[in-house]
């Protein structure tokens, strides 16, 4: 990524970035111990599931024409339930070389399912992934009616010293994808699928793959989630869907498709995390937290829209 491109990326998520700096300073000032370098591992571990969910949501949204994956939260919950309760607890297979590929493959398979529905069966993505949402939530609760199981030590480090690994892995994969022609095809499809189709891009395949990527990233994010909660829990996954969508919107990923990227989504997710963290410190009720989070979402997205309008008018 060139410097110019980086600056453009950052300015698109301008408000989110400013918010991030302010919230970070506020947090450090309020709670130096929690934000001390020695605690960074744990800190990142707390934020990693949300960051992962936001990153995972991005490829499907980028693919445009209403592209979105609302099943991302339940996907993380389902993978969490399977790897902890079935794979590690049931079969006793706790080796990372088995668990990690299984998590990624499950994510990819669910993503493939969503992708086929959205791209080839041509069901509106929000409806298709809503169906998947319900299926996965139902299956998860059926398999794991209540929190159960423990996690191996290596996985626990993903919420401690090595908490940066899953999000970093997603970024590295994305960095690799950006070198491929696929990336340009994805962005072209997202901004104008008819033009891309006319130009010879295989739009259905490009869309399909974006959902597979979302699934793969979701599988990786579920490792962070499993590490953080330390068990198979049927009730946590679902919450991440709306948070992840908010995070991507905050970070300037346009729901119209073709605009935004993983850095913005990550910034948006960190914003939400820091906001929660700061408000929790004040010991305000979760109610206030909720109002603040909703208000920040609306204000941030509005100001980004206003800013884009302003730039569009002044022609910069």
């Amino acid at each position: 990524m060139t410097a110019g491109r980086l600056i453009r990326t950052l300015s698109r998520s301008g408000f989110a970035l400013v918010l991030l700096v302010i919230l970070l300073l506020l947090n450090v000032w309020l709670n130096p111990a929690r934000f001390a370098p020695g605690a960074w591992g744990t800190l990142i571990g707390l934020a990693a599931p949300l960051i992962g969910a936001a990153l995972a949501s991005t490829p499907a949204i980028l693919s445009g024409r209403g592209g979105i994956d609302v099943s991302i939260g339940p996907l993380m919950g389902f993978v969490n339930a399977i790897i902890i309760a079935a794979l590690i607890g049931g079969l006793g297979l706790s080796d990372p070389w088995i668990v990690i590929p299984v998590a990624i493959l499950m994510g990819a398979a669910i993503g493939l399912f969503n992708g086929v529905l959205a791209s080839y069966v041509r069901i509106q993505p929000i409806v298709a992934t809503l169906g998947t949402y319900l299926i996965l939530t139902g299956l998860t609760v059926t398999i794991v009616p209540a929190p159960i199981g423990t996690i191996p030590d290596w996985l626990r480090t993903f919420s401690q010293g090595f908490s940066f690994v899953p999000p970093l892995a997603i970024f590295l994969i994305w960095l690799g994808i950006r070198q491929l022609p696929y990336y340009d095809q994805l962005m072209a499809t997202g901004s104008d699928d008819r033009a891309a189709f006319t130009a010879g891009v295989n739009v259905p395949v490009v869309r399909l793959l974006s959902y597979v990527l979302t699934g793969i990233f979701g599988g990786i994010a579920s490792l962070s989630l499993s590490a953080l909660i330390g068990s198979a829990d049927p009730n946590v996954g679902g919450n991440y869907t709306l948070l992840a969508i908010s995070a991507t919107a905050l970070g300037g990923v346009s729901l119209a498709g073709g605009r935004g990227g993983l850095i913005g989504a990550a910034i948006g997710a960190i914003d939400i995390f820091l906001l929660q963290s700061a408000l929790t410190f004040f010991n305000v009720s979760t109610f206030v937290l909720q109002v603040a989070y909703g208000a920040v979402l609306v204000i941030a997205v509005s100001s980004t829209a206003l800013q884009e309008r302003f730039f569009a008018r002044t022609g910069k």
Partner: protein
Amino acid sequence: MNAALTLLKKHPLLGAILIAVLLHLLGTLLIPGYSSPFSIRAMLVLAALLAVASTGQTLVILLGGIDLSIPFVIGFANVVAAQLTGQGLPFWEVAAIVAVLALLIGAVNGALSSILRIHPLIVTLGTGTVVQGLVLIWTKGFPSGSAPGFVSSFVSIGGSIGPIPVPGLIPALIVMAVALVLVLARTPYGRKLYAQGGNPTAAPFALINPVAMWIVTFALSAFFAAIAGVLLLGFTGSAYGDVGQPYLFQTIAAVVIGGTSLIGGRGSYVGTLAGAVALTEINTLLIGLGLQPSMVQAALGAIIILLVSLYGREPHLRTTI
């Protein structure tokens, strides 16, 4: 079979009606008492509540938007109505306050989405979260108060109006549905709604004001959600802030199963009614068959995908160039 599919694609609303009827027959065959008067009345009331909650979603989706604030507005109306009733306000004052506030919330949704061109999904999610939080702060998380007696009997499964053994909600919904169908087909607002949803770029050239359409339609959506919230208060008897949560996805599902396209401009309210009945039948049938609630949910997801892939598919990109 092919002819049947073509017919379904042309009139997706038939699909929802067909499913509802088939499911009902299936339920009657498999489950004793499925068609008992009480069971039918219960299903009617549940479907009617879902239909009311899905009314606004239908309008908003016809417009080309989506409203995720519906469950939050339902919860808001539910709690505020109970609280105010508990403080001794007469029902009509309670209704007026709740209605005005709901209309305002919806208007904000529509204005932000259309003036700033932010995706309504994000806007309604944000405002919904704020509204719910404010209600929680106001009630400190423990809503109190009570349902107005009039509302309780209006939605009671055992209720009846004169000789007809259904609560007032059912005929009221039918009257409202007829009125709404008439409004959609025969008033400038209704025609503009379809035009704006069908081709938003062309709408301003046909002297349609998009901002006004969005504000009015989202305000209506919140208004109907508020009605659903008050009705649910009567149904359950006490206030509960999260009472609307199941309706987040159920309203979208009812609208889509009813054959209304999420792209906007295509669909009908009668379809939504059929969709609400079909969803209620599916739910009742699966629970009646002894499935766990979680499996009911999973099966519901699969059925939604199946139904929409039968008659709710989008055209191939090739055909849109």
